């Protein structure tokens, strides 16, 4: 059972080529310009994962999809990628991503340029700015929701669009965003 678990957690070693002394490897190593697959694990594996026993204080920037199942205190930014907060994930952080899926807890403002998906039993306290939102029954949310529609979706005349944009900005300045940000439990 123990051996089986270890095999699941780590890349399996080839049983046909037992470990050899370094000198022997050097002599027998074939010359090739193609890198061995095991040297580039990021090409074949899924999104990066911060496990449930990990706690990080500070800023996280990622250029790939990220799953957080641990605790984060700070900020998380994945501008063009998807963030998944797992069921054990606890974020005390501002979040910026293309898409955010919440199964755990977020205390902080969330900006998702494409979509936010708040699943059953998830908890989000903070203000949301996104283009689309899905919230399942049973999820807890406290805060404001501001739907930011992409400019391309508005074929209105430029002057009208500009006027709408400026009125929207003015309105946002007076909205509860700042109050709610400090209103986290």
């Amino acid at each position: 059972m123990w051996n089986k678990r270890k095999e699941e957690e780590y890349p399996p070693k080839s049983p046909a080529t037992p470990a050899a002394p370094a000198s022997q490897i050097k002599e027998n190593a074939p010359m090739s310009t193609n890198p061995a697959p095991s040297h580039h694990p990021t090409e074949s594996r899924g999104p990066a994962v911060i496990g449930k026993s990990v706690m990080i204080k500070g800023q996280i920037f990622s250029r790939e999809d990220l799953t957080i199942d641990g605790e984060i205190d700070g900020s998380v930014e994945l501008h063009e990628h998807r963030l998944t907060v797992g069921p054990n994930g606890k974020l005390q952080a501002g979040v910026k991503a293309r898409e955010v899926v919440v199964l755990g807890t977020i205390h902080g403002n969330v900006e998702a340029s494409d979509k936010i998906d708040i699943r059953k039993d998830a908890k989000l306290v903070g203000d949301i700015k996104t283009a689309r939102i899905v919230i399942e029954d049973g999820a807890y949310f406290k805060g404001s929701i501001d739907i930011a529609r992409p400019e391309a979706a508005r074929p209105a005349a430029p002057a009208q669009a500009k006027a709408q944009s400026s009125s929207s900005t003015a309105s946002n300045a007076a909205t509860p965003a700042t109050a709610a940000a400090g209103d986290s439990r």
Partner: protein
Amino acid sequence: MLKDRLRSEPSSPSLHSPPRKSPGQAQNRASNGLDQFFASLQDQESLSILDFSGASQANISFITSMGHRIYSNDALRTMEEAFGTGGDFITNQSDPDRAALFLRENLEFPDRTFDGALIWDTLQFLAPPLLQDTVDRLYRILRPQSSLLAFFHAEEKAQTAPLYSYRIVESKIMSLTPRNQVRPVQYFNNRSLEKLFQKFHSVKFFLTRDHLREVIVRR
């Protein structure tokens, strides 16, 4: 959550009486109050609306599709956190610390933040000292000319009143999902409601066939 406990702990002696029937299917029904509320928002964009029903896809989609921003909170849940769900639910409302917690969790916003408030039936669970503080706070955070929608059960002799989840279906139709039967803290008639909202500009009532008094209050 309060709503869950209402289902599972029916024997509380104070606020919650035994359920007469189990939670049922959602029913759609027309609402003049809701219609008037959304009529007051017509031809405007980028308004801020306060919704006390808890986050729901229906309410969020409906309000944001009108181009407005919604601030969502589950007032029943914060009520439970502040006052508990047992027999001392009403007496706990006299505790200044608990009352301050309730106000802070639900209504701590800068003055004149919102252009409308969907309070649903939250106010009928509040006892008079805190009730008036809550209404005063609502007055402060609403902008002039804005509207507030609140529901009060209108059957004076009823020992219990149905507790619903309110979801917006259309501008004049809402979906009511019965959660339980609850004993309201007090009965409100037109006179007592006018007195409660006396700071506001106007109060308009709609009495429905199912003994629900829909109230539109203009700031």
